[in-house]
C-alpha cells in the first residue's frame, strides 16, 4: 500500500478530482495549505507599495492506494493538474504499513 500526496494548484482541484473519479479512484483527503517551491512567491501591491507574498495557497490531496494502482493515480494527477508553468506542484509517494477501516475493523488491502 502506498500513500500519494499531491500538492497542486487550488484551481485545479475540481479537474483532478473528476479525472481521479473517472479513473476509478474515489477516496481522498483534501486540505488547503500554503507553501512554496521554485515559484517562490508573487507580488501584491497595496497603497503604492509592493510586497512579496512568499507562501502561496496550494491544495494538498492525500490518497492511499494498493501498489498496483499507484502508476494510474499518479499519471492521472499529473495529466489533470498540469499547466506547464512554474507552480504546478509536486507528488510524493511513500509506503503505508497498515490501513484499518473504522466502521468494520477490517484491515489490509480490503480496507484501502
Amino acid at each position, binding site marked *: 500500500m502506498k500513500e500519494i500526496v499531491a500538492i497542486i494548484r487550488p484551481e485545479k482541484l475540481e479537474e483532478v478530482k473528476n479525472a481521479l473519479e473517472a479513473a476509478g479512484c474515489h477516496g481522498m483527503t483534501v486540505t488547503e495549505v500554503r507553501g512554496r517551491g521554485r515559484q517562490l512567491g508573487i507580488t*501584491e*501591491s*497595496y*497603497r*503604492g507599495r*509592493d*510586497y512579496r*507574498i512568499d507562501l502561496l495557497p496550494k491544495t494538498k490531496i492525500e490518497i492511499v492506494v494498493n501498489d498496483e494502482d499507484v502508476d494510474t493515480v499518479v499519471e492521472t494527477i499529473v495529466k489533470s493538474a498540469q499547466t506547464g508553468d512554474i507552480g504546478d506542484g509536486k507528488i510524493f509517494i511513500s509506503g503505508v504499513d497498515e490501513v484499518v477501516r473504522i466502521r468494520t475493523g477490517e484491515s489490509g488491502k480490503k480496507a484501502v
Partner: protein
Amino acid sequence: MDAVLNSGDTAWMLVSTALVMLMTVPGVALFYGGLTKKENVLNTMFLSLIAFAVTSIIWVLYGYQFAFGADIMGFIGSPVNLLMNGVGVNTAAALAPTIPDFLYIAFQLTFAAITVALISGAVVERMKFSAWLAFIVLWVSLVYVPVAHWVWGGGFLAQLGALDFAGGTVVHINSGVAALALVYLIGKRKDTRLLPHNLGYSVIGASLLWFGWFGFNAGSALTAGGLAASAFLVTNTAAAAGMVSWVIMDYLKVGKPTVLGGISGAVAGLVAITPAAGFVTVPAALIIGLVTSVISYLAVSYLKPRLGYDDALDVFGIHGMSGIWGSVATGLFAAPFINELGTGLIYGNPGQLTAQVIAVAVVAAYSFVVTLIIGKLLDFTVGLRVSSKEEIEGLDTHLHEETGYRI
C-alpha cells in the same frame, strides 16, 4: 426673537445625524478592520466602537457645553447645561435656529466620535486597550473640544473668518496630525507591512463612509435646502474624482488599478471636500478631488517610507494631508454665489486664503503638541504599548480572549 423649529430641517438633521453615526459604527470599524492582520481584526474594530461610546458619554456630560457654550475670550465655551440640565425639548439650537438644541448636540456628538475613531487607524496592532480608553477621554476633552470651539463654536478662528464647512480642520487635520504625534511616541510595529486580511470589509466600510458622508457634509448645512443639496453634489463629485485620480496614480506607478487604491482615493476626495462642501462649485469639487488623491498618494507611498513613521493605516497620509489640501482649497475656491459667507482667492479675496492657512497651522500645531503631551503622560502611567509577545501573537486573543475567525 422667538425661533421657530422647522420640521423639514429637523427631519433632515435627524437623518443626517444617524448617517454620520454610520460612518464610525460600522464604517471606520470595517474600513480599518479589513486592513489589519486577522489576529487583530476584533481589536481594530473595537477601537472605533469604544471611541464612539466613550465620546458619546463625554459629549452629553460636559463636552458639548465646553465646545459650544457662549464664547469665553475666543478659547472655550462657557459650560452651562452640564449633563444637559436646562436644555428644553423645544429649545432651538443657538447655532442652528430651526432645529432643536438636542438635535444639534447629537449631530455634533457624531463628529467628535468619528474624529477620535479615525486616529485609531494609526496605532492599531500595538496599542494597549486601557491606554486607548484613557486617550479617548483626554483627547476629546483637551484637543477636540477646544478646537471645535475655535472653529465652530464662535472661538478665535471663527472670528478670524476661517471657513470649515464640515470638519476639514476640526475633524481631519486634527485627527491626522494627532495620529502622527501618537505613532511617534508608540513606535513602529514589528511587522509594518500593509497586507489586508479581508479587503472586502474595507470596501464595505469605505462605501458606508461615502454614504454617511452625505449626512456629514450636506447635514452641515443645518437646514434642508439648496445649500445642503449643493454640498451633497460637490461631496459626491469630489469622492468620485478622488477615486478616479488614485486609480490613475496606481496605473502610473504599479501598472495595475487596485481596489484599495480606489477606496482610498474616494475617502481622500471626501476628506478634501469636507471643509469646502458648502462653499464651492461642482467644477471646483472636481479639481479638489483630482488633486487630493495625488497629494495623499505621494504622502503614503513616498513621504511615509522616507520619514519612517509607522502610521499603520495612513491616517495622516489620507486624513491629515487631504484635510490640509481641502482647507487651503476652500480659501482658493469659495464662491460667494454658493454661500455668502465665503469668498475665495479666485473670486478676488486673498484674505480668505490667509485665514485658511492660519487655521490649518494653528489646529495642526495645537493637536500635535497636546497629543504628544497626552501620549507621553499615558506612556509614563498605563503604558501605550502591548508586550512584544502580545503583539506577535495578536491582540484579539491576548486583550479580549476572542478570535475573529474560528477555522
